[in-house]
């Protein structure tokens, strides 16, 4: 197990006001760590708060409560302009929709070089162009593409441009917010292979947010499952798929359609019934096996342990 923590999320909360003194608790007391060089997958259905978590980590939202530590430094603390710049360089984001996340009026060269300009990473025009061309090649595009505009590219190619832009400032952590959901199946595999290759070459760390569980399983080392703003289970991806403990995780896993007719014919779906939970006390995040955490009450903890045969 890698030991160096690159990111620590501690009791993170993000509430949105919904009028008339009502609050939407999009993220409610979520804690997890990300280690250097790993891929941490965050899965959940729409409304589970997985994207809000990602956006709060990179400071697109201010946290309501709790803290996010990046290399031990609080992300949400008051910062000078220079400190903010330094932080932004280390953490980058890839968005879901490759067409709306690229400025249609800018050339690919300017889109990718924007980060280089902001951080003064290149000295002159020639160096700027060279860097962009290197980046384009790294993500599998040609240098001739630099002078074109986003609309001249297909969805998969646009996502590659988004990846090149994120890579430009040489970040350590990249938050990938559903980077493949908008792409076709054959293109998804291309982008996932590219992300894996870049990780190997550059030692990147990914926070991979998605709802496609089979892809998340494929790319992630560890996975956190979110449901209604809570992290309900967190484990190594193998462990999570082999021994899911929380009833919600079980139902989510049983709902994944697999491209295997035989399996689909025999499949039994598990439905999640929130009323089976023990309500005698507030559930807490507990470690049921080494590195396998589940949100439960003490009574449920004993029951889950028995189910796991421990």
């Amino acid at each position, binding site marked *: 197990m890698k030991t160096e923590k690159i990111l620590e999320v501690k009791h993170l909360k993000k509430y949105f006001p919904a009028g008339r003194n009502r609050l939407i608790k999009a993220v409610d007391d979520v804690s997890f760590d990300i280690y250097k060089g790993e891929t941490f997958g965050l899965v959940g259905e729409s409304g589970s708060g997985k994207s809000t978590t990602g956006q709060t980590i990179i400071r697109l939202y201010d946290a309501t409560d709790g803290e996010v530590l990046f290399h031990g430094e609080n992300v949400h603390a008051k910062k000078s302009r220079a400190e903010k710049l330094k932080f932004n360089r280390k953490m980058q984001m890839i968005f879901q929709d490759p067409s709306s996340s690229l400025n249609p009026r800018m050339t690919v060269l300017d889109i990718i070089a924007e980060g280089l300009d902001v951080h003064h990473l290149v000295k002159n025009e020639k160096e700027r162009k060279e860097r962009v061309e290197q980046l384009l090649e790294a993500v599998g595009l040609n240098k001739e593409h630099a002078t074109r505009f986003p609309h001249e590219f297909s969805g998969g190619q646009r996502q590659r441009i988004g990846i090149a832009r994120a890579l430009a400032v040489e970040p350590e952590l990249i938050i990938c917010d559903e980077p493949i959901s908008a792409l076709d199946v054959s293109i998804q595999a291309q982008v996932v292979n590219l992300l894996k290759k870049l990780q190997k070459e550059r030692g990147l760390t990914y926070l991979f947010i998605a709802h496609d569980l089979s892809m998340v399983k494929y790319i992630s080392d560890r996975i956190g499952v979110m449901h209604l703003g809570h992290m309900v289970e967190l484990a190594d991806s193998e462990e999570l798929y082999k021994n899911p403990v929380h009833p919600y995780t079980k139902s989510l896993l049983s709902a994944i*359609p697999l491209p295997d007719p035989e399996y689909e014919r025999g499949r039994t779906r598990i439905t999640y019934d929130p009323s089976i939970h023990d309500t005698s006390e507030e559930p807490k995040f507990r470690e049921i096996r080494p590195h396998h955490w589940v949100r439960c009450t003490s009574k449920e903890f004993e029951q889950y342990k028995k189910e796991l045969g421990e």
Partner: protein
Amino acid sequence: MSKLLEVKDLRVSFNTYNGEVQAVRGVSFDLNEGETLAIVGESGSGKSVTSSTLMGLLPKPAGVIKSGQILFQGEDLVKKSEKEMQKIRGKEISMVFQDPLSSLNPTMKIGNQIIEGLIKHQGMNRAEAKKKAIELLDQVGIPHPEIRVNQYPHQFSGGMRQRVVIAIALACNPKILIADEPTTALDVTIQAQILELMKEIQRDTKTSIIFITHDLGVVANVADRVAVMYAGKIVEIGTVDDVFYNPKHPYTWGLLGSMPTLDAEDEELYTIPGTPPDMLNPPKGDAFAPRNEFALEIDAVMEPPMFKVSDTHYAATWLLHKNAPKIEMPESVRRRIEGFAKTGKKGGE
């Protein structure tokens, strides 16, 4: 099993400012009574254009049926006027769309939206129709249908809305239900519920379903037969077991290989290089050849015909010609399919 629908050499083009886009280029298939035929393909493969043509919903004047026949109970739908199609649409053939929110009218109570078809096609009066609407909502698994019937679409969740859309589509007991990506906008757990509902309904009503999707997992779940489309053509068609366990077309290999399995494996995903062709200028010969690592010389010159693999299984690739070199599917894809068969046994226990 008797044939309910026969599509013969359908060709559909769109006239655009840039020229003629050949969206569907000679599609033929049959639909039997009571079966589910899945049409899979990437965006731009022509699967949705095929389905809107069946419904007579091609945008006019841009969309043109260049040739072909759609025989439904012996009558050619291509020749029908808009007025005649209105009698068939919703009554004999109905459709469920991808996004349930935009296919419902936000300003109408859902009861009234279900009733519309019943009054028009079945000549019911309002009271009868309303009773039937409540029955239908109950059938698609909406709790408290007598209250829900008087509510508006925004009061329903995404999954419930899709149930309403299915209830509307089923209102007149159609013979064919065309479902165009009906679960793509839904979460996986809700998707599983909707798929179960559709299968249940099919068992009860014996409706034939054409299921359009890009998700092979969903296909494996719902389909009896599968047609794989690429660049406006069907490249492989067969029973679900034929196509998933014994695929013959390199494109199908690529699709199956590019999906990760749940078994641990760190190897790279098999990918299809490149991007789908531009249908403004479809390539000469086999449209898939530029992305096909197994392409033969003939692929650049001539389009492959449909070769017969078995009575139920056909594929359009020159690799099946008797003079073609023996080429088997890539090792990684073969292992993957064997892996599927294994998990399949597990699921069946």
